[in-house]
């Protein structure tokens, strides 16, 4: 079964009692890309990721990860999947080195000591590598957690809000790292509630209240916004709203014949926040 998609999700649903955490979500995640899950808290990002790694069983729907079933073929998939949970999920009494080594041993990583050393350098943890993790800052714990998720160089990396509580400098570095991993063929599924971060992904889906409300490239999502054209003529102002698609503006201007006495054409594009929040509002059924 060869498919250009690392992950195929068909109509999966999952409820916790009354709460529908996921409601008939379908999506395909291409290989070797950074795929973003964007949505406010409680929108179902963690539930979706945990279903994909096989630690949650959906109530209904079909899931294929690297051509396999994440629950039934759990033991086959384990070498190819890396997971960084939303909580740090590391052993607080152990040092960073011990934590990374432990997960490396479970994964039977070859040449483990050298790999541990280079991943410690990579995540800038060498200076504190022997201290117990409980003495680390939130951002450092996140890096230990990331290192534990990557020690076996998985094909597929699931990152649940990896840069929450990470300082801006390291946030940028983390994203450079994710990009580098993707260039080397790793498929990355990353969740976030931050818009600026989401727009660093290759592809993006927006979740709200367990529903998928949009899936596109960040550019495609931006083009779903509207552009307001403001015509000022003889001191009088006339406004017209067009779509943000690149052809739309030219089209509109043609109908105006681009008259010589139009002295100003200004663009007021929607911000990313405006677009996403409007999508969320539309999707939110009033109680």
């Amino acid at each position, binding site marked *: 079964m060869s498919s250009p998609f690392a992950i195929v999700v068909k109509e999966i649903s999952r409820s916790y009692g009354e709460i529908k955490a996921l409601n008939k979500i379908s999506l395909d995640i291409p290989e070797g890309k950074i795929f973003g899950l964007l949505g406010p808290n409680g929108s179902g990002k963690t539930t979706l990721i*945990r279903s994909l*790694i*096989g*630690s*949650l*069983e959906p109530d209904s729907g079909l899931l294929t990860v690297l051509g396999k079933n994440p*629950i039934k073929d*759990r*033991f086959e998939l*384990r*070498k190819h*999947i890396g*997971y960084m*949970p939303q*909580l*740090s*999920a*590391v*052993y*607080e*009494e*152990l040092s960073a080195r*011990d934590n990374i080594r*432990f*997960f490396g*041993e*479970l*994964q*039977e990583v070859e040449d483990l000591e050298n790999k541990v050393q280079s991943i410690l350098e990579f995540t800038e943890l060498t200076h504190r590598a022997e201290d*117990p993790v409980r003495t680390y800052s939130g951002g450092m714990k996140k890096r230990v957690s990331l290192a*534990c998720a990557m020690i076996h160089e998985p094909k597929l990396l699931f990152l649940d809000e990896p840069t929450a509580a990470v300082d801006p400098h390291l946030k940028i570095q983390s994203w450079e790292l994710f990009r580098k991993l993707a260039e080397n063929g790793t498929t990355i599924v990353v969740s976030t509630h931050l818009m600026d971060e989401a727009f660093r992904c290759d592809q993006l889906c927006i979740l709200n209240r367990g529903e998928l409300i949009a899936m596109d490239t960040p550019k495609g999502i931006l083009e779903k916004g509207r552009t307001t054209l403001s015509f000022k003529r003889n001191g009088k102002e006339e406004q017209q709203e067009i779509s943000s698609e690149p052809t739309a503006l030219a089209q509109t201007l043609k109908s105006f014949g681009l008259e010589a006495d139009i002295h100003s054409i200004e663009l007021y594009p929607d911000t990313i926040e405006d677009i996403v929040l409007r999508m969320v509002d539309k999707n939110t059924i009033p109680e």
Partner: protein
Amino acid sequence: MISKHLTTISKRVIKQLILDKRYLALSTIAPLVIIGFYKLFADAITSSTPGFVIARYAIPISAFIVHFLCFILCAIALVQERKDGTLERLFINGVHKTSIIGGYALGYFGLATLQSVIVLTETIWLFDLDFTSGEIILIFIVIWLLAIVSVLLGIFVSTFARSEGHVFPFIPLLILPSIFLSGLLIDVSLLPNPVQIFSHLLPLNYANNILQDIVFDDLNMHETLQNIGILLGYAICLWILASSTLKETE
């Protein structure tokens, strides 16, 4: 694969125990102190009650301490794994639950051995008790078996707990009745009949049977093997119970 994961996990469990100073202190100093208190109590009671056999209580109390501590420490450690998300992480890294149960049992077996050595050495030294080397080996075997049963009971109970606090109601339910009903303080045969049924459900009862026989030089090969067999049966049943309640997926 399972055996490799099992040893990796047990090594980690032991390392964590050694690095967590509070755990280590609780599991080694507390038993020492309790035996010390028992010494004070025994000295007072022997002067007022002639015929009081110190060893009758000292050895079973040592066993109870190991039973209690192994149960509670193991249950709490596993609840922490679940709460912190490291348990989920173990499963995602392809660890089978057999490796987790076995790894914990093996790791805490190490702790139980340390505790047994400490507690028994102190007891034998403080009360000037006299056992043959064969008897001491048998005492160790019994306490080890009891420790394994306690660890498995702790793992089983931990599967019902979402936080450390949820473990505590199980102490009066499962552990404290052992003090009064398992022959630790009074022979089970002296208890009312319906209560005896309950006594026979407590694993400490079977450990206590052997320990009493050792203390009173009343060892009987057949009975000893029977009691050991029952303790092994407990271990097997609890292993099966723990594996059926430890869930790999939600």
